[in-house]
């Protein structure tokens, strides 16, 4: 089942930092729809990572980005496992194996790292829509 407008709207609200709206929209997604939402989230993460690092990013850039996100609050510093986060980013750029990371941990990292990537990009509304459109295409492929 392809990604729905409701899933896109829920993720868009999160990335636009409209957390009340995000919570309301996410709460309306049933279990099957949340699976699609997770695919969209992962696809958006892949898209954002590639935009940030694919051209000129180095291993050091990945390390410093993760540290920057962790350093934004004490809670993030404790919640994000730096090595797992770095591996997740590298896996989006290469064929690094991350099968040993459990899905829950990966989901949590997608959420916080994607927010960090999008926040740094300071995307306009149109820019955010464009990124989500790209992510939607990728997620639709995955869900086919």
């Amino acid at each position: 089942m392809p990604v729905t407008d409701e899933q896109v709207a829920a993720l868009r609200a999160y990335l636009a930092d409209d957390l009340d709206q995000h919570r309301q929209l996410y709460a309306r997604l049933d279990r099957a729809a949340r699976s699609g939402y997770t695919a969209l989230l992962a696809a958006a993460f892949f898209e954002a990572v590639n935009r940030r690092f694919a051209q000129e990013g180095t291993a050091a850039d990945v390390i410093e980005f993760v540290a920057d996100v962790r350093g934004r609050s004490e809670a993030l510093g404790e919640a994000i496992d730096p090595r797992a986060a770095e591996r997740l980013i590298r896996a989006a750029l290469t064929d690094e194996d991350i099968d040993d990371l459990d899905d829950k941990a990966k989901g949590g990292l997608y959420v916080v790292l994607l927010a960090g990537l999008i926040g740094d990009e300071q995307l306009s509304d149109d820019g955010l829509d464009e990124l989500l459109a790209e992510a939607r295409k990728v997620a639709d492929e995955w869900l086919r």
Partner: protein
Amino acid sequence: MTGLMSSWPKPARSLTNGSGEPVTGEVSTRDGHQGVAALRAFLTGDDDTFGQLSAHLQSRDGPGSGDTYAAMQAMTLTLAARRRFGPAYTPGEVIRFVAQVRAVLGDEVDPLTAERVLRGVLGDPVSAEGLDEHAKALAVPALLLVLVGQEKLPGEDLETLLAQARVMANHLLAEP
């Protein structure tokens, strides 16, 4: 540059920071001088001298030679870190600095261990408790190398730092 995994033996007793568990031991003036010289060689990238001094001290003193060197390392790290971060450091500063260390020296330094070591010497000894000794043995010299390297200390400032660390290390090792 001397590899982080030098052939220096681990200290016979745990030396994590100035507030950690005290160790006992006697340090002769000669030991102190050679510990300083070995650390100076490490920090200035004089691999040959470091190798010669570490081999000499290990052959002469056996496993106990690691205590003096580890004490010197720990006290130099304490002084350099406090000089760099001051008392009002934030967790984010520690996290970002450790990332710089790993960006410069590579991924073998475990980030969480290095952050805990650094917080430990900055006045939070609890955070450095229970660390894996191998991971700590990689983190301490890496932190020190980048701290001292970024400070770009002229020779005399490095000597002052090492002299102060030597006094503290001797106190630490002399504690019952």
